[in-house]
């Protein structure tokens, strides 16, 4: 069967470029509103728990390493290690989502959710900050879920030897997607949780 690994990889990168510009557009929206409402953004940012943000950053960075290592493992014909690394990636991704769930739940409990009464009273800048926070971290979490499905397929293919040491472009593409999710978080994290 004809196979074009290089074409497959270019296709993945082109998709990643659309993702970069999608989130890039949102980062520009954030930058402009922050410029317009500096005090509200500073105060609203202090509402977020930087410890949870830091823990999730560490989790995503480690998961990026494990999926990158799984490519090396499959190239060295070590199927068992590759699968262990992929399962580790999945577990870390689920922990990230669980943290996100508790973080958002706490915000909801305190009355911070889109168009809540608490936000309406706090003014325009705070509404914008939390609108962007929920939309951007929500869209990012959605990408984590999509990545989990992607990695799920990859694990199935590795199990059935459809991804092997001389046919692993799908695994590499999954890795590229996962690193993109990591890359976006690297910028989301300081902008929402740290800067004030």
């Amino acid at each position, binding site marked *: 069967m004809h196979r074009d690994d290089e074409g497959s*990889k270019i296709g993945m990168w082109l998709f990643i470029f659309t993702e970069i510009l999608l989130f890039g557009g949102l980062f*520009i929206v954030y*930058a402009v509103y922050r410029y317009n409402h500096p005090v509200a953004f500073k105060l609203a940012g202090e509402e977020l728990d930087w410890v949870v943000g830091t823990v999730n950053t560490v989790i995503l960075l480690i998961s990026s390493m494990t999926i*990158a290592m799984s490519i090396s493992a499959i190239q060295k014909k070590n199927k068992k290690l590759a699968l262990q690394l992929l399962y580790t990636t999945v577990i870390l991704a689920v922990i990230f989502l669980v943290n996100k769930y508790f973080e958002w739940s706490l915000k909801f409990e305190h009355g911070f959710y889109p168009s809540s009464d608490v936000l309406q009273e706090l003014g325009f800048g705070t509404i914008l900050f939390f609108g962007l926070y929920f939309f951007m971290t929500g869209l990012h979490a959605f990408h984590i879920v999509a990545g989990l499905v992607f990695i799920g397929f990859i694990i199935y293919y590795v199990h059935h030897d459809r991804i092997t040491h001389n046919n692993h472009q799908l695994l590499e593409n999954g*890795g590229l997607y996962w690193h993109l999710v*990591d890359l976006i978080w690297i910028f989301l994290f300081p902008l929402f949780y*740290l800067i004030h």
Partner: protein
Amino acid sequence: MNKENNHIVPYYVYFVVLGALLLLTAITVLITRVELGALNTAAAMLIATIKGLIVLLYFMHLKFDQKIYAIMVGLVMAVFFAVIVITFFDYLYR
């Protein structure tokens, strides 16, 4: 066709890369705990950019792949940067 795929990155490279990323994360958190005013944002963004470059070069294999991928990524970043500059020219001078 598969020439580029034969490059196997040793495991230790990924451990070193993760160590560097975690160290930079710790530095970002510590820097933003200190009150530096506008410098906070600049420092945090600078470190985030360095972390992003490390992810692109090592995790996403740009360092080991054909140069065309790095060139494409560079072009997309240039477009993105241009849009940022144009947007802020509009907001600063309207």
